[in-house]
């Protein structure tokens, strides 16, 4: 347990905070029944993963990875790692596109079931399934 020194804790605090944020998002996704809220939770989860990546790319004393415009690069200047930035940049835009797809699905679900609560949708589905089994069960060979 002697690895828990002060520099270690400060150096890892960022990971822990982002984990906490990530778990908040996960909790919303798992525990809340409202579909729109689930999407917001997923977005939060996503953003905290982005933060995790970006914080890995940070170098102490570094600056943003953009060279001076005349390209006279000072070798003493430390730049943060640009690779995570690139990956996350595209991930954000893809994330919003998929979010839009999810929201579109929710709109369709609402039109079909007149609700966006997970529990109610399950109830409606169950009723539908039992009715179908009662009507067509014998024909399909299953019975009740």
């Amino acid at each position: 347990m002697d690895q828990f020194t002060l520099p270690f804790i400060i150096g890892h605090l960022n990971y822990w905070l982002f984990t906490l944020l990530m778990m908040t998002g996960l909790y919303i996704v798992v525990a809340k029944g409202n579909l729109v809220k689930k999407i917001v939770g997923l977005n939060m989860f996503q953003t905290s993963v982005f933060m995790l990546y970006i914080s890995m790319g940070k170098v102490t004393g570094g600056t943003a990875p953009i060279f001076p415009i005349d390209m006279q690069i000072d070798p003493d200047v430390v730049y943060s790692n640009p690779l995570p930035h690139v990956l996350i940049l595209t991930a954000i835009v893809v994330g919003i596109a998929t979010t839009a797809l999810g929201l579109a699905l929710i709109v369709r679900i609402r039109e079909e079931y007149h609700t966006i609560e997970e529990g109610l949708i399950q109830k409606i589905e169950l009723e539908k399934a039992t009715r179908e089994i009662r009507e067509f069960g014998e024909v399909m060979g299953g019975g009740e």
Partner: protein
Amino acid sequence: MVNAIAVVRTRSLFAVAMLSGAFSLLSALLFVTLDAVDVAFTEAAVGGGISTVLLLGTLALTTRFERHAEHSPFLPLFVVIVTGAAIIYGTLDMPNFGDPSAPVHQHVGPDYLARSPHEIGVPNVVTAILASYRGYDTMGETAVVFAAGIGVMVLLSGLRRRRRRDGSIEDREEDG
């Protein structure tokens, strides 16, 4: 952080949409302090702008309030705590924040930084990597955005025409 917890608690979905926009802007600020200006720019434009508008658009099509949860929150809470503990246990092996000798900074990252001035000649290294070194990636991402756009169009605009034609049949079923 406070913002996130507020999102969990609030039941008015309108407030949730606004809070998630604020959350995006705050995370954009965080990205600026972490030297990722390009990312912060994107997050502010996308999260603060488009996604809030889309959420509001969805709310206009659905409902504005959330119902009470039917089951107790303890099982999900347990799952979340276990997962979080596992992840935190995993981070114990990670290098310290901002450590220049971390494995992330050993491989391709510095290589791009060293090569792009004379190979590409573009001051913004992020753009150079995005469009040139990782051009394949970016093309794939563009294709994903394209596919998602097509998906939304099919889901929301295409079906309405078919709907109207089927309308009479559905009405009869409901009568019977």
